[in-house]
């Protein structure tokens, strides 16, 4: 099993949302909330999830050399944004994916992204890649 398939730091589920619940009636909404609650509760009890939160659709995007460009939220209704996250305490991609596949929100059109938590930041990882390439070139 390679590094991609395992992560000792666990995995992050990112819930992509375009307000898929907006058009659900009260009954459906209550049902999905109950299903979702039960789902999270089960994962917590089993020790497979260790925390998560929902994010508002408001927000700001900071960019530019000194962070001088600040565009304000809220994000347009139709735009897909990350609506929440759940930290998983599982060690393999396969298990994280299996957990994601049981999310009750999928039936309503939600999308879930599974990403490993890493030790090295992407820059460090790239530096290591470059160092390895140099070693190969020297050899």
């Amino acid at each position, binding site marked *: 099993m390679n590094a991609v398939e395992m*992560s000792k730091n666990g995995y992050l589920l990112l819930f992509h949302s375009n307000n898929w619940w907006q058009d659900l009636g009260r009954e459906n909404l209550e049902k999905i909330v109950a299903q979702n609650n039960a789902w999270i509760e089960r994962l917590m009890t089993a020790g497979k999830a260790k925390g998560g*939160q929902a994010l508002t659709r408001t927000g700001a995007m900071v960019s530019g050399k000194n962070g001088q460009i600040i565009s304000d939220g809220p994000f347009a209704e139709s735009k897909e944004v990350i609506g929440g996250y759940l930290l998983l305490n599982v060690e393999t991609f396969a298990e994280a994916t299996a957990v994601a596949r049981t999310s009750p929100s999928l039936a309503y059109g939600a999308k879930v992204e599974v990403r490993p938590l890493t030790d090295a930041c992407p820059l460090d990882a790239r530096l290591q890649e470059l160092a390895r390439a140099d070693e190969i070139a020297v050899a």
Partner: protein
Amino acid sequence: MLLFVGMDWHKGLSPEQMQKVSEEWMEWFKHLTEEGKAVAGHPLGFEGRGISGRNGHVTDGPFAEAKEVVGGYFLLDVPTMDEAVAIARQCPGLPCGAKVEVRPVLLNCPLNPANKIEETLAVTK
């Protein structure tokens, strides 16, 4: 919550520049943690899986293209959006083209059953 958007902005940097930004970034997080303003944070691997549809169809790779993919996050414990934005503006990756999305955490959303912040904090401390 700060979401660091984009996983390709560092590609054009020299190894020295990358080293420098990486060190500054770690120092920044350490400082915020010591001040109690950051309570969790992690880089994310570029690999990903996307799950969608009633039957949980699995696709390889994150949903977005490299410039829009989330490369990491900080969970901040600050009371105002202004303070969160001020912190985001200190991100050492900004001069290189990184983007930081600042998003308030929703505490009492009916669709947010996962309000286990205490557990999150307990694990990350």
